[in-house]
C-alpha cells in the first residue's frame, strides 16, 4: 500500500497515523514477522523497519542496542528484503537505514529491491537533501517514496529544498538529539509544524512514547506520530508476553489518534 493512500484514508476517517519503528532481525528475523503482525493487530498504521547498520549515528542507545542485537542475529540486506517480501501486511512498510548500505548495494538495485519486496518508502537519516539527487531519481522512477527529515534547526532555504524532493510524508524531528524515549515533547515541534505550509503529511518522531505525547503532537497539527524506542524497549526485554505487550501499547497509542 502506498503511504499517501494511507494518510488519505486516515484523514477520511479523521484519524492520525501511528507509525511504529522496529529493527528487523531484533531479536531474530523469524520474530520480526510476529512483531509486525502484533503491531498491526494493535492498530499501527505504518511500519518503519530498520535495516541495521554498524554505525548508527542518528540513533540513541536504545535503538543502537536493537541494531546490535539484529546484526548479531545475522540480519543483512539480502535477508532483510527476503523478510520484508514475505510479510503479508495491509499497511505500508518503510525502510529506515543509513546511506552506506544503500550505496554499497548499488542505489538502483536497492530501490528496485524495495519495490519488489513491497516497501513503499525509504528514510535515510544521514542523507541530507544536497546529497540525495541520485537516490531521489531512482525512487521517483520506481514510485518509492523518499522521506526526508526536517529538524527545528532546518532553515527556510533548506526547507524549500527538502519540500521540493520529499514524498510520502515529512519526518519531523521533535527536538534536537538522537532517538530515544523522553519525558516531554518539545515546544519547538509546534512552531516547526506551523512553518510547513506544503500539503504533504507530517509525522513527528524522536522521543514519543506516551499517549499524552501523541495527543499533544496531533493537536499541534501533525498528521501522524512515529514511535520507536518505546516499542523497542519491549522487544529488548524479550519476555514471553512480548507480542501482547507490543499490541497493547499500539492499541493504547492508536486510541489517542482516533476522532480528531
Amino acid at each position, binding site marked *: 500500500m502506498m503511504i499517501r493512500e494511507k494518510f488519505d484514508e486516515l484523514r477520511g476517517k479523521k484519524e492520525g497515523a501511528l507509525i511504529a519503528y522496529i529493527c528487523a532481525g531484533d531479536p531474530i528475523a523469524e520474530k520480526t514477522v510476529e512483531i509486525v503482525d502484533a503491531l498491526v493487530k494493535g492498530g499501527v498504521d505504518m511500519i518503519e523497519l530498520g535495516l541495521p547498520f554498524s554505525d548508527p549515528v542518528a540513533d540513541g542507545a536504545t535503538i543502537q542496542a536493537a541494531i546490535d542485537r539484529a546484526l548479531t542475529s545475522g540480519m543483512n540486506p539480502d535477508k532483510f528484503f527476503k523478510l520484508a517480501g514475505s510479510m503479508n501486511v495491509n499497511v505500508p512498510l518503510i525502510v529506515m537505514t543509513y546511506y552506506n548500505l544503500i550505496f554499497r548495494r548499488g542505489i538502483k538495485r536497492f530501490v528496485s529491491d524495495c519495490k519488489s519486496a513491497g516497501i513503499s518508502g525509504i528514510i535515510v537519516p544521514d542523507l541530507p537533501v544536497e*546529497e540525495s539527487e541520485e537516490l531521489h531519481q531512482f525512487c521517483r522512477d520506481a514510485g518509492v517514496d523518499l522521506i526526508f527529515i526536517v529538524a527545528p534547526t*532546518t532553515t527556510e532555504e533548506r526547507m524549500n529544498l527538502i519540500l521540493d524532493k520529499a514524498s510520502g510524508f515529512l519526518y519531523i524531528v521533535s527536538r534536537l538529539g538522537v532517538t530515544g524515549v523522553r519525558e516531554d515533547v518539545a515546544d519547538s515541534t509546534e512552531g516547526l509544524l506551523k512553518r510547513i505550509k506544503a500539503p504533504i503529511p507530517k509525522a513527528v518522531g524522536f522521543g514519543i512514547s506516551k499517549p499524552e505525547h501523541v495527543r499533544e503532537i496531533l493537536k499541534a497539527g501533525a498528521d501522524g506520530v512515529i514511535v520507536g524506542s518505546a516499542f523497542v524497549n519491549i522487544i529488548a526485554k524479550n519476555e514471553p508476553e512480548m507480542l501482547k505487550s507490543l499490541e497493547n501499547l499500539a492499541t493504547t497509542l492508536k486510541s489517542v489518534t482516533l476522532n480528531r
Partner: protein
Amino acid sequence: MKKFGRYGGQFAPEVLMPALEELAGAYEQHKNDAKFVAELRHYSEDFGGRPTPLYHAKRLSEHLNKKVYLKREDLVHGGAHKLNNTIGQALLAKYMGKERIIAETGAGQHGTATAMAGAVLGLETVIYMGVKDMERQKMNVFRMKLLGAEVIPVSSGSQTLKDAINEALRDWVANVGDTYYLVGSIVGPHPYPTIVRDFQTVIGQETREQILGKEGRLPDSIVACAGGGSNAMGIFYPFLNDDVDLFAVEAGGEGLKKTEKVAYHSASLCAGEEGVLHGARTKILQNKYGQILESHSIAPGLDYSGVGPELARLVDTGRVKARNISDEDALDAFHVLSRLEGIVPALESAHAIAYVQKDDVGDLVVINLSGRGDKDVETVAGLK
C-alpha cells in the same frame, strides 16, 4: 569546495546541516582575518612551541644509507602534531561564540590536545573515548582530566575511535546550539577535512622552508603515517605541485586480511573500498553489505576504519602513494629510532620510519615524526 573529486561531501543528519553551514561560513570569515591569524600564531608559537625543528638524523641516515630528516612534531606541546589543529579550531569556536567544545579521541593524543586548547582558551571540554582505548592509554586519560576535561567512556561497538566519533556526533546533534565539535583529523563532513588540513599545513610550510634552507633543494620524498591522515595531509599539502614523492603509510597490522566483521589492519587507502562513513564519501573498511569493519593497529591513532576524503582522492589520482607497514615492522622501527637517535617515536610515526627502512624512497627523505612515544611505552613494555 565541498568535495575532493567524488570524495567528501556532507552525509550528516539534517539537524547538523545548519551547524555545518554556520561553521563553513565562520571559517571563511575568520581564516584570513588579521586578528584571528595573529592570535593563532601567538598560541602556535608561544604556547605550542612552533616552529618545530627539521632535524638531520645522522645516525639513522647512516643506518639507512640515505639522508633522513625528521620533522619534529613530537616536540609540539602535548607531544604530537594534534595541537596545531585543536588550537586552531578551539580559537575558531571562541570566535564563533561557542562555550563548549567536544571531541572524540583514539590514542588520546587528540583528546589531550583538545583539552589543552580548551583549558588555555577557557572553554568547557568534553572528550569521548572508547573504553578499549582508555585501557590502552591510561596516561592520556589522566592527563585530559588533569587539564580539566571531562572524559566520557564509550562502551558501544568496538569501543575504539569510530565508536567515540559516533558518540561525539550524538552529543553534537543534541547540543548543536552552544557546542563546537572539534574533529581531530581530516575526516567528517565538509568543511572539517578542509579546516583540519589547513591548520595542519603549517607542518609542510615549515618543512619546505627548512629543507630549502638546509639542503638548497626539495626532498626526493616525504613519508608520513596515515590513520585519518591529518599529519600526512599537513606535511604533503604545500608539496602537491612539486616533484616530490609523497608516501602515506598506513597500519598494515597483522596483514591485509579481513573477515565479515573485522579487518586485521587499518589500511583504508590500500585495502578499503568506496563508501560513506562519518559524514564523508571516502575509502573505508567494510564488508560486502557495507557494514563497517572493526579495524586493528598496534598504534591506536591509526586504528580507524576510514580515511580523509582528500587523501583518498590524492591516492586515486596517483599523487600520493599509499603503503602499509605491519605491527611488527613498526615495533622494530620504534626501537631503531629510540636507540639510534635518542627519540622514542609514537607507534603511529614508527610506521613512517619503518617504511623508509624497508623501501627505496630516494636519497633525501623527510619523515614526519608526528608524535612522541611516551604514551606507548607501557604497550611496548607489555609485549616483552
